[in-house]
Each structure stands twice: as structure tokens, then as C-alpha cells.
């Protein structure tokens, strides 16, 4: 970056993927990237000075309030598993969780822990979801809140659509033309871009959390356990070891069909479809796209429908968990 030396804000920019399930910070490290991730969750234990001392001594991040001691970030999941309770979530369906009284304070704590202070107005691009299909815009407050939190940490901030971030991370070979899909915890974000310009973007509210809660309800299990099975041993290839995996498979199919149907509806209702003279690549990313067989199942369902453009390939991102963060970082780097 030729102006790095004279523009401190351009020095070492970063990308931040603010997901419902996880928050990931991407920074440049030589020719590669560094990623740091924290679980976007917390668990509350009753207050005790001794507990505070233990947590402080073990460097477990927490805050104390009238409601008790809130352990946040990655340690929250371990503590929740030990206590056999569900974690509490600052975000739901891609945006701040209005039903969680501690959502704002906990999100602030996790972002502060992960990103730290922004020295010299360090540039930071953070992801925001697109509005859900057919819904009024519900992301303005979420965007403004993130902007304020991160600005107060000293960063020069910009938001970027999460689906567009996928395109920036994965589609440099096609001049950032194609479809990026991020299948996260709260939402699936879709973006169609042409030469880096977003043309169409939307989200559907069925994603990882929908699968976890629906499968948990159907199988009589905790959502935490469903998530662990899904992340550790689940295959979307028709082979089901037990009822839990079978139920997860059912809701995965439902999510994929909703996603494809949403894409079809969005493109059909688009007032002016760009005249594209080449087939488009589709890139899938996000933690919900990780299970083996997801790409194949998505392609099979996708190809059952008719779209107003040809598809060159449907592939999984090289690093699905970090794609959005890396794309946000690329956007930050490209601004210099």
C-alpha cells in the first residue's frame, strides 16, 4: 500500500465477520492471513467473589453485573456444557437479539476482547446481513450499533454485506463476478455481484440455529448437543447413524430448499436483471455449509430449478469458517 507510511489509518486494516454464532477477526500476516474467532455467546453464573477470583486467575473473560457473572466468548460454551444449560446469545437471526437484555453489553465485551483498541483510526470493515426476503429492513439499528461500538474502540469503520464479503474473498478469478452465499448461524446471506458491485442481496432466516432448534425439538435433545453432533460427525450423504442425525438431515434439506427457493424468487422479482454474457460461479461458505455432502446436496436441489443465468460451478469456499472475515479484510485493504 503506497500510502501506508503517511496514512496511519491504512496501516494493518482488519476485517470482522460479526455472525450470530461466531465473530471472526481477520488481519494480514505477511502474505497470509491471521484469524481469531470468539463464540458470540455467554453464560451466566450466580455472583460470588470467589468465582470472580477464579475466573480472573484463569484468565477467563467475564463481566459482573446485577444479574450475575457473565462468562463470554469461547469459554462460555465449555461452561454451558459443564452446567448443562444453553448459552445466551447477543444476536439472533443475524442481528442484535431484542429479547436478550444483555445483548448490547455482551456484544460490546466480545468485540472489545476480539478486536481490542483501534490504534490511529485503524480501518475495519465489518459484515452486516442483508434484509430478509420480503421483510422490512431490520438491519439499520444493528448496523448503527456495531458502527458505534467499533468506532468507540478507535476504528475507522465501514460495513459490508456478508454475501459480498464472500465474493471478495473467493471470486477474484472472475473479477468479483458471481454469487456468494454465507450459511451462518442466524441467516443465510446471498449476494450477486458484477465486477465487484453488488447487484442483488438478501437473506433468509433459516440457517444453523434453525436446524439446531428444530432438530432439538424433534429429537428431544438440547440445541447445544445437536450443534455438537452437526459439527463433529454429521454427513449430508443419506447415511444416518441414529435418529439425531436423521432429524438433522431433514432440516438441512429444508434449509437448502428455502435458500434455493429464495434465490429463485429474488431473481424473478428483480426489476432489472443484468445482461450477463458468461456463466456465474456460486460459492458456498459459513459454518453451516461445513458438513460433508452439503455442496453436493445444494447443487442437486439448485439444479432442479431454473434460473435466468447459467452457472459455471458451485463450490465450497477454501476456508468456509473464515471466508466472510477474509472478504471484509480484502475490502478494507482495497480501500487504501
Amino acid at each position, binding site marked *: 500500500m503506497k500510502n501506508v507510511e503517511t*496514512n*496511519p*489509518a491504512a496501516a494493518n486494516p482488519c476485517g470482522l465477520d460479526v455472525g450470530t454464532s461466531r465473530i471472526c477477526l481477520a488481519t494480514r500476516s505477511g502474505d497470509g492471513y491471521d484469524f481469531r474467532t470468539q463464540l458470540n455467546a455467554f453464560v451466566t*453464573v*450466580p*455472583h*460470588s*467473589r*470467589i*468465582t*470472580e477470583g*477464579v475466573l480472573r486467575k*484463569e484468565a477467563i473473560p*467475564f*463481566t*459482573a453485573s446485577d444479574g450475575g*457473572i457473565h462468562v463470554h466468548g469461547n*469459554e462460555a460454551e*465449555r*461452561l454451558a456444557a*459443564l*452446567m448443562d444449560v444453553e448459552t445466551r446469545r447477543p444476536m439472533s437471526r443475524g442481528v442484535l437479539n431484542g429479547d436478550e437484555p444483555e445483548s*448490547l*453489553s455482551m456484544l*460490546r465485551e466480545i468485540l472489545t476482547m476480539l478486536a481490542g483498541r483501534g490504534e490511529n483510526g485503524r480501518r475495519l470493515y465489518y459484515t452486516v446481513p*442483508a*434484509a430478509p*426476503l420480503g421483510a422490512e*429492513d431490520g438491519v439499520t*439499528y444493528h448496523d*448503527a*450499533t456495531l458502527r*458505534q*461500538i467499533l468506532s*468507540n474502540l478507535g476504528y475507522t469503520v465501514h460495513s459490508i454485506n456478508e454475501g459480498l464479503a464472500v465474493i*471478495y474473498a473467493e471470486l*477474484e478469478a472472475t*473479477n*468479483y463476478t458471481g454469487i456468494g452465499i454465507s450459511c451462518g448461524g442466524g441467516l443465510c446471506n446471498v449476494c450477486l455481484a*458484477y*465486477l*465487484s*458491485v*453488488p*447487484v*442483488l442481496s*438478501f437473506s433468509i432466516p433459516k440457517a444453523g440455529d434453525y436446524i439446531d432448534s428444530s432438530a432439538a425439538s424433534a429429537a428431544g435433545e438440547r440445541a447445544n448437543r445437536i450443534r455438537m453432533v452437526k459439527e463433529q460427525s454429521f454427513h449430508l450423504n443419506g447415511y444416518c447413524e441414529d435418529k439425531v442425525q436423521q432429524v438433522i438431515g431433514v432440516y438441512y434439506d429444508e434449509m437448502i430448499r428455502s435458500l434455493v427457493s429464495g434465490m429463485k*424468487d*429474488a431473481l424473478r*422479482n*428483480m426489476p432489472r436483471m*443484468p*445482461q450477463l*454474457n458468461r456463466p456465474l460461479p456460486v460459492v458456498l461458505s459459513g459454518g453451516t455449509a461445513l458438513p460433508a455432502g452439503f455442496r453436493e446436496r445444494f447443487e442437486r436441489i439448485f439444479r432442479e430449478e431454473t434460473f435466468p443465468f447459467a452457472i459455471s460451478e458451485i463450490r465450497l469456499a477454501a476456508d468456509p469458517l473464515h471466508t466472510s472475515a477474509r472478504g471484509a479484510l*480484502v*475490502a478494507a*485493504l*482495497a*480501500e*487504501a
Partner: protein
Amino acid sequence: MRPLSAESALYEDAAVERRAARIADPVARLRFLRRMHGAPRPRRPSQAPWIAAGFAAVGLIWLMTSLAPPLNIAPPLPAAASQALMPDFAPHAAAVWVVERTAAYEQYSNGLRVELAYETRTHARRPFAVMAVSGPAFRVVGWRNEPNGIVFHTTESDVVPIEAANRDALERIGESTLAAVRQGHCYHYLIDRFGRVFRIVAESDVAYHAGRSVWGTPEAFYVNLNGSFLGVAFESSTSAGAPATTAQLNAGRALTEMLRARYGIAAENCVTHAQVSVNPGAALIGFHTDWGASFPFAALGLPDNYAIPPASIALFGFRHDAAFDAALRGRTWPGVAVAELQVRAGAAASGLPMNTHRTALARRARSLITALHAHSFEKEGIDEKR
């Protein structure tokens, strides 16, 4: 659905694509494409500072007007305040003194009345060790001669509904319970179902209420709490699902307040029998499970001490078994989870697998508990009661 940036100039731009394709660096290529499509070139701070200030002012005004009160975004907390310690629960037990003392009862300034009809003696408390963790071993950091805590019990005696029709049964059960605990020197105090407080064993003496037990922190912990903690029992039965009555809770609060004031007992050292009881041979917690759940800490003016990580797990690596889980009906204390984190951190620090580290902790603990237990009874010359 929100279509973005639908200018016709953006489409079919073959020349732009050809130029972009010649840029090898993907970031530079993106920068080029965005600038070709009208993305503003960022101004350097050194150029035209008055322009930057003007934009900042406009931006600030926009921000203030767009983030109107309905958004109600709270300002960030100072780092220190976000982790400020909560005020101590009932931090300063007000002084409680004896208003009247007769052969039959003691009346205290906070309304507590202690019945003395069943009071008995065992043997005087001897100085007990305050232990601390010192690297791989334990060491004695001090000696005390006065009680340092309270262990709450249930008598697990028969319970009948408190109704006028059951008056005779209630009296009979109460009297037999009192006689039994007096004979066994089981507790220092018993609170019957009507809220009457009976001193059973003199506070200066040892009551056999805790058995093999552990409580405390790495800086100060106690083993085998008969001598170091006072035993207070509620006439109730957790196994029969009969929690303490309102009268018992009121009496318990007054008694706890008096004892804490008299001996300077910290709130964190007022705990339940289930929390302190251990089975050293099997390296298990919860050898006794009375008040393993639902102890009314708040009603007694205490914080929720289920949040405190049990020393039996944190320091000794003990586990809990299915019988314990069943007794608590799945309501594991939050402190157990925190203690497990401590054990895990200790394993990581020592570079050992979790199970190996836990086994080493338990082996060390068993030796200590057994040695202290045998030592105390050699001195006291009294058979174990519990």
C-alpha cells in the same frame, strides 16, 4: 430483497474487465474495479484538513440525528467498571448481642431466641489448621480456634403437614428428633418446623456434623469441618420434598446473622452439607446430599453460594457420580462447572492429560484428608459419629 447499484454503466464493461484481468494482485484488482464504479477515493489526512474537519462535523451531526433516543445505545463502560466487584452480600453483619439469658433460653437483639433445654457438651474445640495450596503440596498457613464457617443440614426426619390436626404428630416427631440429635451430638443448632431454635452442642465444642469434608479456596481451605465449622440443621427432609418452612427461614436468618456477627464468619463460608461432604476413598463429592439443591441462601441473607467452585473439585480433582446427580435431580451447581475449568486449567499448566492430573490431585487429597482425620481422632479419642 434489496437490489443495489443498478446503473446501466456497470454492465457489459468488457474494457474494464480486460484491464482488471491484467492486475495480478487481487486486492489491487478489487480497488481498481471499485474505483471504476465510483467508489470514493479516500482522502489522506494530510491533505486539506479543513475538508476533513468539515466532513467530520457533518458526519457527527448526521450520527447524532440518526442515532436518536429511541435507539437507546448505552455508552461504553470504562474497563475497570465492567469488572467491578459486586458489593459483599450482607457485608457487615451488625453486632448482635444477648438481651436476656436464663437457664432456659437466650434472647438476642435481632429477635433470635435460642432454647437451651437440649444443650449438651462434647469436648472443646482444639486449634484447627488453615491450609493453602503451595505448588504441588499443601501447607499450613495458620491456626484458628474459633469457628470459621457454618454448614447447613437437614435432619431427614419424618415430616407431616403443618396443620392443627397434626399438632400431636408434629410435637412427637420434633421431640424424638431433638433427642436423637442430642444423643448423637449431631449439630450445634437445630431449627424445628415451628421455627424454634435449639442449641444442641455448645458452640465451644465439637459437633459431629460434617465428617469427611472440604471447603475453601486455594489460599485458605479447611478439611474435616467438625471443628472448624458450626453445624446448623433444619428439621426437614429434602428427600421427601419438604423444604424449610417460613418460620424456619426467619429463624435461620436470625441465627446465621448472630453467628456471623459473633465469629466474623464470611458469607462464602456459609454452605450446605452437600457442598462440603466428600468420599475420599472414591474421590467423589456429595457423600451426603442434604441441601444439594434449593437451599434458600437469599432468605438467610447470604449470596448464592452454589456459585462457589467446591474446593473438593477445584483443589482435589474429585468428581460427582450418578447417585449424586440423581439426588440433585440434575440441578448441578454453577460452581461445579467453574471448578472443572480450574482443574482443566491446572492440567494444561502441568502439561498432563486431564485424567492423569485429576488422579494426581485426588491421590494427594486422600492422603491429606485421611491423615488429618486420623490425627483429630487420636487427639480426641472419640469414635467417628458421621
